[in-house]
């Protein structure tokens, strides 16, 4: 029902002039219609998403925060010149409050809390980033093979996926981390490896779903009928078009993996105590929580803000990349 009809039905009888959008062709030379200028070229999914994202406060805030975190990771020296390693800490400062040049006070060991928060960023983010990269590569391959080839490949991979799903990330990581192999060489890279082993199933499921959705699209059939091989059409046509949901989930899981690292370090079986990380700092501040909660609260805040910004970024990307969600 058009608004005009509605108005007459209700009896208010406002007659609006009917608008013509078509010019009389006798008055308009034919070539004029051909000269219509499009104000912009039709955008791709990513172009449109970018236009959308630029206006979203959630995206701008999280992107800014992630930018800051990355700068802190790469150049911690820009933010704090104090040596936060335990050798340089003065026990005389134990549990000291904020003082000049030491805005967040001291830990029980007399280390500068601010410097430790700054220098702890790198290991936490490194674990999150490299785990995500590994998970996307491995889980992506598994999911793409399952979704694209279907049949028995799918059935076998789905069962393997189920098996790993039955073991929660933290549970599996705890069991693995205690094996003699990992107990003796515990560092950022062994932690990344373990988190990849138990973290890939989710990305594999998402990729599988996305690939199945695109697999039967017309452009894939067209490519295949032009003689493109199955593998090539998977790589060139199917995968690039199913990237959106994978990127969204990967962004969010980057946050989850940072949490997993700090949880394991907090439990005392993640990074060794000599490595500075937020999880280790929270763990060591736990003992004096009731007398001096600040050394626990500041790394916790840094951790939460970092994780939150990755989750917010993922949320914003999902909204921007999913046209169906946008209309709602």
């Amino acid at each position: 029902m058009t608004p005009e009809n509605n108005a007459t039905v209700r009896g208010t009888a406002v007659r609006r002039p009917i608008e013509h959008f078509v010019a009389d062709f006798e008055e308009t030379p034919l070539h004029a219609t051909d000269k219509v200028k499009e104000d912009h070229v039709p955008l791709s999914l990513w172009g449109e998403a970018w236009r959308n994202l630029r206006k979203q406060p959630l995206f701008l805030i999280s992107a800014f925060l992630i930018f800051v975190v990355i700068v802190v990771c790469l150049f911690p020296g820009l933010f704090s010149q104090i040596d936060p390693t335990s050798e340089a800490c003065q026990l005389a400062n134990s549990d000291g409050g904020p003082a000049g040049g030491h805005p967040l006070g001291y830990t029980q060991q007399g280390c500068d809390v601010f410097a430790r928060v700054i220098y702890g960023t790198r290991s936490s983010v490194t674990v999150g980033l490299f785990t995500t990269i590994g998970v996307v590569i491995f889980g992506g391959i598994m999911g793409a093979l399952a979704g694209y080839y279907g049949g028995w490949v799918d059935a076998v991979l789905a069962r393997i996926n189920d098996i790993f799903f039955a073991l929660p990330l933290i549970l599996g990581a705890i069991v693995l981390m205690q094996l003699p192999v990992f107990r003796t060489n515990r560092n950022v890279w062994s932690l990344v490896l373990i988190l990849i082993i138990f973290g890939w199933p989710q990305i594999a499921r998402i990729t599988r779903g996305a690939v199945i959705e695109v697999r039967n699209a017309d452009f894939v059939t067209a490519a295949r009928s032009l003689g493109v091989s199955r593998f090539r059409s998977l790589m060139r046509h199917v995968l690039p078009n199913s990237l959106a949901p994978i990127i969204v989930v990967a962004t969010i899981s980057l946050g989850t993996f940072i949490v997993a690292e700090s949880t394991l370090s907090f439990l005392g079986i993640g990074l060794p105590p000599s490595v500075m990380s937020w999880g280790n700092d929270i763990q060591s501040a736990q003992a004096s929580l009731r007398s001096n909660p600040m050394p626990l609260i500041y790394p916790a805040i840094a951790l939460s803000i970092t994780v939150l910004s990755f989750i917010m970024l993922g949320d914003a990307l999902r909204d921007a990349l999913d046209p169906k969600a946008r209309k709602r």
Partner: protein
Amino acid sequence: MAWYILRRFLQLVPVFLGATLLVYFLVFSLPGDPIVALFGDKPVNEAVAAQLRAQYNLDQPFWIQYLLYLKSIFTFDLGLDFTGREIATVLGEVFPVTARLAVMALIFEAVFGIVFGLIAGLRKGKLFDATVLVASLIVIGIPIFVLGFLLQFFIGVQLGWAKPTVSSAATVQDLILPAMVLGLGSFAYVLRLTRTSVIENMSADYVRTATAKGLSRGRVVRVHILRNSLIPVVTFLGADLGSLMGGAIVTEGIFNVPGVGNRLYRAVTSGEGPTVVSIVTVLVLIYCVSNLLVDLLYAWLDPRIRYDS
């Protein structure tokens, strides 16, 4: 329906076998001898080591070990842990505690998640919706051990509204705070899932039909919107029961709950392979059973699922 149940059941068998095999392999067959690790820095007493190996069948080839282990699960004869207690008795002590904790957490996240999610979905774009969305994002972003410490410190110690630590009996009253902490993360997911699902269903044809034929708003919301929106939520909750039981390690550590997580953590750090494997097996079993129940509930909520193959 019987066929459906049977099919779902048969699909879980390989998952159970695969997961237990994987854990068994990880604990007992990767490089590094768990029995030697038991001796720590002390020199290895070969006679004791050999006796331990025989007791846990570690002198057999891997496949025989695994089959013997499977047999011990199905005969409930799990053997002794390294301190000489029956593993079955230990499991009988710790599992009820964690089950109570996990069920309380599940009730907490289901009730609050669904109620808040429904209200937020019905008032999409309003102030309540925006507030709840931001709050849930923050809850998801804060790691569970940070939340645990903060709640323990502020609610338990400073305000004294709930007990900050749990007694060895682990009564329902003791577990209120830990259950809240355990359920908070999933609460945010339940809320968001319910909200999205409600918003989707509000514009469905059958809701418009129900409104058009003159049903009251309350009935439309309860019967038509809510029941249909609950389908994905129920799936999530069912799958979550397994991960709540397995993921309680951190929460149990903070609040000193004498449950599965605490025992598992102790077993893992002291290298008690047999206890680790037994606990993880029961957790996998719980995961499988709760998934099966979800499938059945799903088929009951949405009859369409039963019939497609």
